[in-house]
Structure formats: structure tokens, C-alpha cells
């Protein structure tokens, strides 16, 4: 059976001067539709590289990445841009909001690139901002909001084009524990209710506990895979 996302022998090697750093060493994995996958590992384990490669932000040195029927590794930059616009939403550790735009504009930015008219897209954005609990902060600029609020804006932005997959790179890395659980509840709840696939990178086992599949990475290798609390060999 074809999986929603399939990685075969993915290798990523960085060259630092003469030294070769193997960030990913022949990774094979698959993700099914609607799954919540957490890539868990310490700093330098290759978890972020794996996410970037899956999202098409980085090219693998070797191997294939198939999302639906598309081969991510052989797409051109323009094809990737179009693919991301349609299929992928991103949430980052440092939020990555546009500092000059207010919450409403930040959330509707992906729709601007798809050419949606202003009224329609701002209506959608306002609806999503209400859903993440920022209905009263529509016109606030990022620097006028707390970290948790900014991350909610970025979550709303990730969901605005109704993507099939949400990639989240340490979404709670800059947040305190109370906000962490709020943000995690929000992001998992939204993804689940929409049937979206969520792939999340973290070093925090508490965050990993939200996922139904946890892949433990160490030095570029998959150390173990835990599905619904049970180790899978």
C-alpha cells in the first residue's frame, strides 16, 4: 500500500571544510494521512534536517521523498513554492511573522500569494484568529504581542490555506510550560479536527507525548519508533 509520505534511504551530508557531517543516514520511514508524528531528539540528532528535507526546504544528498504522488527531491524551486502553497503549513520556533504586518495581514499572507481577493482572505483570516483565541488582536503587530500570542498567529497562518500537512519545528521552544500545553492543545486539536497530518520536531518528551507516533533520532539514525506508546521494531 502506498503511504501518504514515504522516505527511502534518505541521506544528507553537510560539508564543513574537509569534514563531512552525516546529518541523516539512510532514513526510511512513512507517515499516513491524519497521523501525528513527532521527531524527537537532542540538538544535532538530525531531527530538524529531516523535517526540512521532508518539507522540501532542503535537498537530500541521496534518496527519495514522496509526498502523495510527488517526488519532493526532484522538484524545482518554483514547483516547490506552488506545492508548499497548496499542501503545506509551517509553524516555527521563532514564529517567523512579518514584523510590519498586523495579525490579520500575517495570517492572510499565504492567500495573498495565491491571489485571493482582500475581502475574502481577511474574512478567512479573522475566522481563524478567532479560532486560536486572538479575536481581539486582529490589528496588533507581532511586537505588540506575547510569544504565545505570536505563536498562535503563526499557527493560524499555517492553517489558513487548509494544507494537507503541518510541519512544526520546535513550536514550543520559546514558550513556558503553561503556554506550551496551550499551544500544543491548539495545534493538535486543529490538525485532528481537520484530518490533517502533523509532523512536529521537538527535543521535549512532554511534547512528544501528544503524538501518536514518535521517532527517536540520534546522530542521523532512527533509534526507535514508538507507535501509540508501543515500541515498533
Amino acid at each position: 500500500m502506498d503511504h501518504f509520505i514515504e522516505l527511502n534511504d534518505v541521506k544528507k551530508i553537510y560539508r564543513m571544510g574537509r569534514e563531512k557531517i552525516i546529518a541523516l543516514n539512510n532514513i526510511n520511514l512513512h507517515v499516513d494521512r491524519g497521523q501525528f508524528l513527532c521527531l524527537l531528539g537532542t540538538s544535532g540528532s538530525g531531527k530538524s534536517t529531516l523535517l526540512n528535507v521532508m518539507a522540501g526546504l532542503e535537498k537530500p544528498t541521496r534518496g527519495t521523498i514522496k509526498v502523495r504522488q510527488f517526488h519532493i527531491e526532484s522538484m524545482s524551486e518554483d514547483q516547490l513554492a506552488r506545492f508548499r502553497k497548496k499542501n503545506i503549513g509551517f509553524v516555527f520556533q521563532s514564529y517567523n511573522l512579518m514584523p510590519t504586518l498586523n495579525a490579520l495581514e500575517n495570517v492572510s499572507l499565504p492567500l495573498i500569494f495565491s491571489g485571493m481577493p482582500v475581502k475574502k482572505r481577511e474574512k478567512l483570516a479573522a475566522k481563524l484568529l478567532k479560532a486560536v483565541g486572538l479575536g481581539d488582536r486582529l490589528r496588533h503587530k507581532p511586537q505588540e504581542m506575547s510569544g504565545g500570542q505570536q505563536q498562535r498567529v503563526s499557527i493560524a497562518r499555517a492553517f489558513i490555506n487548509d494544507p494537507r500537512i503541518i510541519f512544526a519545528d520546535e513550536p514550543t521552544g520559546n514558550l513556558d510550560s503553561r503556554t506550551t500545553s496551550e499551544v500544543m492543545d491548539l495545534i493538535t486539536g486543529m490538525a485532528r479536527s481537520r484530518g490533517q497530518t502533523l509532523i512536529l520536531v521537538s527535543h521535549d518528551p512532554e511534547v512528544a507525548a501528544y503524538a501518536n507516533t514518535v521517532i527517536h533520532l540520534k546522530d542521523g539514525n532512527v533509534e526507535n519508533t514508538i507507535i501509540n506508546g508501543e515500541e515498533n521494531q
Partner: protein
Amino acid sequence: MNSIDLLQMAVKNLMRRKMRTFLTILGVIIGTGAIILMLSLGIGMTAAMKQSIMEMGSINIITVYSSGGYGGYYSEDMSTSTTSDMQLDDMAVQSFASLPGVEAVTPYLSRYWKIYTKKYAVDAEIVGIDPTAMQKMNFELSDGRLLEATDKLDLVIGSEVKNMFYDIRSNNMHSHDENGVDIDLLQEKLKLTYDMSYGQRNSNSADSDQKPAEPYKVNAVGILQEGNWEQAYSVYIPLEQMQEIIEAEQRWQKQGNDYGSRNNGNNTNEYEQVKVKVADINDVEQVQQSINDMGYQTQSLNDILESSKKSMAVTQAILGGIGAVSLLIAAIGITNTMVMSIYERTREIGIMKVIGASLRDIRRLFLLEAALIGLGGGAIGLGVSYLGSWLINYIFVQQASHMGTEGFSQISLIPWWLALMAVAFTSLIGLIAGYLPAVRATKLSALEALRTV
């Protein structure tokens, strides 16, 4: 990404660094102003020159001389050099008329004769002209009408002729009143005579065997407008009448043994000059060349115009070059600003890429920002140029009136095409200047850009 969003985003980005944007635009304003003002001086000077040449006569009229005599109305050569020269006769007139581009042709048959009223007289060049062609020969009237085909002894009088009348009794043709004599030529009963001794008869009794010539009663039907010096001093009469009068003069001269046998052109079908009017100014050179090739001598103001145009083109190129240098510096300023802007916004470019901006969107955004700087600077620069041009003209007119050289009202001229081209050009410069930075922006790796703090 649709165009309105793109424009909004570009303007917003430019407004973020108001000071820098303003300074960059200022560079473009100065560049545009310099190039427009420099070119406007060249254009204004060319126009002034053209105007002064136009005042000498009509630019699209070629004067043809028979190959013997060049330009001399009373050249003795005319009658003597009849060897194998091309004659300016009716045949020649026909052949000129059949040249492509020629609108009208008329012979000029002229004599220096006298016109007088009861009190005043004038010695003037009387020109026989084809009345049907006269309409097309760039004559402009201040009063009355031009000659018509049915006219007989009717005259159209040059603008300066009126001022040349002198009192018959004063007997001194050089003591003209500055304002001319007080006569209305269109109303006055005029007489025309080839007897130049008219009015001096009393003192000139030596010519006893000469019968006084019978004068012709003539009738002025039109006065020409000032401003064309070639026509101002002549009096025009239908060609056929002119020929008849010349024949009468010749008979009269044979009768009395007139001392001055002014037999310029024994045959009244042979002309000193033929004027050829060319419909389109651009054809003048070609028509002139074909007439030259037939063996005639020609002259036209176009010759002068062309040669002075060439020298003006050099002046204009130098002036334009000076302006172009400052615009080039402005273009470098735009590039600099855009490169700086991309450094500052590296992270934003990364974000836009990750959330779905295509390379085209990013390229268009940065190109548009650069073009807007060019367009804005160009438009304001154009306004500044109009102001500068007005100022230059104002000062120039004041200076000119001090020096007593009036006539040219402006030395700096901005035609609409220059205004339009300047703004289009600066926008283009902005696009070109922004191209490199824009490509650079598209080449940024999204991931690298995101990692930039």
C-alpha cells in the same frame, strides 16, 4: 499574487525607510531634472534657430536659378551666358511640377519699377507670379486677399513696401518716414510704371525725345503679413500681366534710345527664378537634388536648416550627456538602496518563500519597488524641470530685453514627448537598477534566510 496586493506591498516596504527612500528618490529627481533641463535647452535653442530661419522665408520652398546666374536678380550674366545652359522656361516649370512631392511651381519674373499715388511713390521689386500657385506659396495676409486666376492688374503688396513710400515732391527716396506714409494701399488709386524717371521729369528734361510712358492703373487687393523677409519688400502681380508690361517696356525702350538698356531676359518666357513648393518638408532635400541633377542651380532655407541642425545635434548630445551622467549616478543609488533593502529583509524573503511566494512574486516585488523609486523620482523631477525651465526662460527674457535682442521668448523648451520619455526612462532605469538585487533576492535559500536573525 495580484497586482494590487503587489503594489500595496511595494509601497509599504518603501515607506518603512522613509529617509532612505526619499534620498534615493532625490538622486533620481536631480538626475531627471539635469537631463530634462539640458535637453530642453538644446531643443529650445534649435526651435529659436528654426524660427529665425523661418523668418527669412519658407523652408519648404526651393528657389531655382538658371545655371548661368546664381541669385542675381539683375545679373548681366543672365543674358550673356546663353551657351548650353538650361533655360528656365515654361518647359522647365512643367518638369519641376511633375516631380514627386512638388505641390506648386511658379516662375518669378521681376523688375524694379515704380508705383505711385498722387502724393507718394515707391521703387520696388515687382514680381510676376502664377496667381493659381500663389495660394500655395506660404503667403500670409494681414489684409485683403491673395491673387486669383481672374485677376488682371491686381497687386499683393509686401509688408515692408508701405514703409518705403516717399513723398514725390521731396524728391528724395531715402528720406522715408519711420512709420511709413499715411496711406491705405487697398483703397488708394495706384499706378504702376516702368518709367523710373516719373516725378523727376522737370529736372530731367535732357531726355526730350523720350515720350513719357503710359502708366498702368493698378489695384492693391492684399497686404502681406510681417515676419517673412523674403516676401516683405516685393509687390506681386499676375504673371501674364507682368509679361505684357515687360513687352510694352521693351517697345518703349526701343522707341526712345533709353540709356539704360536694361534688357534682362529678352524673352518674357524665360525666368530668372522659379519657386518650387514641396508639400512635405522632409522631401525638400530630395526634390532639390533632382532639380540640381537637371542642371539647375537651387537654393533653399532647408540647406541652412540642415547644416545648423547638424551642429545643434552635437550641442544637444553634449548637454544630454551631462544630464545622463547624473541619471547614471541616480541609477547606482537605486541599486544600492535595493541591495541594502534585501540585506535587511533577508529573513522576510525567507518567510515569504516558505509560505508559498513564488520566485516570480519575489522578483516582481523588488523590481516594482525599484521601478517605483524611478517613477516617483522621474515624475517629481519632471515637475522640478518645468519649474527650472520656467525660471531659465524668465531670466533669459529679462536679459534679452536688456540687451535688446527680443524675439525669442524661451530658450528652454520641454516638449510633451520629452516629458513622457523622461518618466518612462527613469522607470526603466529603476527596473534595470533593481534587476540585479531582485534576482539576488530570488536566489536566497529560504532556509538560510530563515536562519538569519
